[in-house]
């Protein structure tokens, strides 16, 4: 019994790192452009479907298809920012929220109409035989996703600490006007934030697609991101990762508790939202967020 719980917690941590990665992308956009992106899940969806299409229909090898997906998502993110989000700078928060929601519906429906609603498996890229880690059976794809997530996190840390572009983005997030007066192109930074976010989300989408198959269920990641970022704090990258881990574990523990004692069913999907509401009531800036949020 406790072994089951342990296994679930490990699963939670693995899924949680993926949540963390997506949440990080979400926070990246929010921090640098002040846009709450309700279409984050669709980035995963589009990335995964693009890669799937390249691998299966175009018969490209994975090592070629993957960079192509990346390149496509970069262009996609930049175009999206320039065409849709740029005209909305300075508009009230509801307009910005609604435009991302509109995009989310639009992309989801377009993807469904092109690729259908049924999950499509990726051709086997990694062996599917589960490996033994500390006495627990773990799928190699999961292990790989864990490794990929950790690599992304380290890369993010390096990017924001040392690279020129990363410093420019941090400066813009801190104060747009000052950054602009120091010669940083805020326009480029905005486009860059969307491009990076789209690319990294697509990566997460491909990883999840390999494990579970590609389907429109991927966009649910974009919804699960909200509990994660609220727990962690809406403008903290570290908070996003930790929030993602907490939500991943919480989901699995909720499933365990539900299965063992409560028998309510579906607690797995709803528990994070209860946590979200509670956190918003008692600590709306989350664990690591800036405490400037007004309570009215």
């Amino acid at each position: 019994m406790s072994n089951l719980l342990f296994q679930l917690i490990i699963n939670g941590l693995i899924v949680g790192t993926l949540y963390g990665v997506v949440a990080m992308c979400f926070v990246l956009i929010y921090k640098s452009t002040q846009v709450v992106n309700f279409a984050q899940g669709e980035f995963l969806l589009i990335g995964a479907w693009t890669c799937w299409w390249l691998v299966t229909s175009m018969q490209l090898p994975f090592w070629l298809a993957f960079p192509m997906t990346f390149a496509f998502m970069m262009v996609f993110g930049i175009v999206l920012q320039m065409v849709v989000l740029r005209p909305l700078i300075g508009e009230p928060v509801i307009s910005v929220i609604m435009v991302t929601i509109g995009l989310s519906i639009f992309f989801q429906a377009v993807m469904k109409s092109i690729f259908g609603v049924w999950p499509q498996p990726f051709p086997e890229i990694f062996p599917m035989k589960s490996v033994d880690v500390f006495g627990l059976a773990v799928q190699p794809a999961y292990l790989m996703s864990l490794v990929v997530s950790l690599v992304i996190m380290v890369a993010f840390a390096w990017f924001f600490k040392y690279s020129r572009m990363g410093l420019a983005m941090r400066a813009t997030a801190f104060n747009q006007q000052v950054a602009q007066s120091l010669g940083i192109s805020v326009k480029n930074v905005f486009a860059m934030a969307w491009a990076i976010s789209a690319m990294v989300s697509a990566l997460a989408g491909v990883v999840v697609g390999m494990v579970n198959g590609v389907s429109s269920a991927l966009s649910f990641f974009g919804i699960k991101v909200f509990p994660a970022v609220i727990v962690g704090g809406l403008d903290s990258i570290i908070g996003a990762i930790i929030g993602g881990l907490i939500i991943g574990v919480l989901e699995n523990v909720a499933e365990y508790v539900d299965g063992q004692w409560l028998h309510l069913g579906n607690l797995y999907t709803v528990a994070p939202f209860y946590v979200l509401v509670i956190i918003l009531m008692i600590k709306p800036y989350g664990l690591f967020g800036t405490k400037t949020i007004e309570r009215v």
Partner: protein
Amino acid sequence: MISSSLIPCGQYKTSYAADTTIFLTPASRNWCILGIILAACAPLVLSNYLLALLIQIGYYGIAALGLNILVGSTGQISLGHAAFFGFGAFASAWLNNTFGVPVLLSIPLAGVMTTLLGLLFGIPAGRLKGLYLAIATFASQFILEDFFSRANWFTGGSSGAMANPVSLFGYELNGDKSFFYVVLAWLVVMFIIGTNLLRTRDGRAFVAVRDHYLSAEVMGINLTKYRILSFGISSFYAGIGGALYGHYLGFVSAEGFTILLSIQFLGMIIIGGMGSVMGTLMGTVFMVLLPEATEGAVSAIKHVTGDIPALTSALAYIKEATIGLAIVLFLIFEPDGLVHRWRLIKSYWKLYPFSY
């Protein structure tokens, strides 16, 4: 917000009371009455299909007006309106099925029940604003959806609940034609209440809270009270709309009240015009007709090119995509909504052909 700059020449006011009438000019009042009379004649001439669309516009319009009072006039964002709409539908069916409350009475009672729920969910709204409120209501949508699929005693769980047709003096009004009058009556009453509400002290307080909450508080407006009150009122509208929806379809199931419907409600008020009663109706008409127009366009394409199976199977998603696209395009190109465009058209023709 509703500009009064388009008052025709020769219209002047000599008292403050005249400045706050429901209709700016006698002409607009007469047009409105004429519109209601025409609508009342509609069942005599229209086919059942068109009548069904009008009924749809009716119950969605009532709910959308509630959302517009909340979002457009008070500036509170709600992404969970469909859940309240659904709660109203279930509540009315439940009251009717379990306690035998007559349907005509159970509809307003369902509205009251939804109001209580809205006040409860409005408590976070008293403390949060902007995107935090959006995320909180987003969560409440999922929590309520989960509640619908779980609460067997109330909603019938996953199998849904039956809703009886409206009966009046022992005579069942279950056809489209008779139900149309029920919806029309509610629509007119709710819109009159809505318009009047925005002229009262409370309505002005809502607008003050929207425009600048600090100034509003300085002027002695209790922010928490008005935010929660606004949630309650909007839930009342959602409940009435939902109850009408339930009794029209005769069957209520949790699958009808997803986040997509919430987004459609928001789309209605954005496309129509935020904070405008007339705009709400325009936006609802637009949103109800959009899928029909899409279907028409798709069948026209098929007529030209021959049958494309992929297009037929994807029709449902194409409809969804047009909804998303319409919201995005309106926000980029016409953020003030159809009502603004309507005013521009009116002012253009007023001076035609000498407009400058």
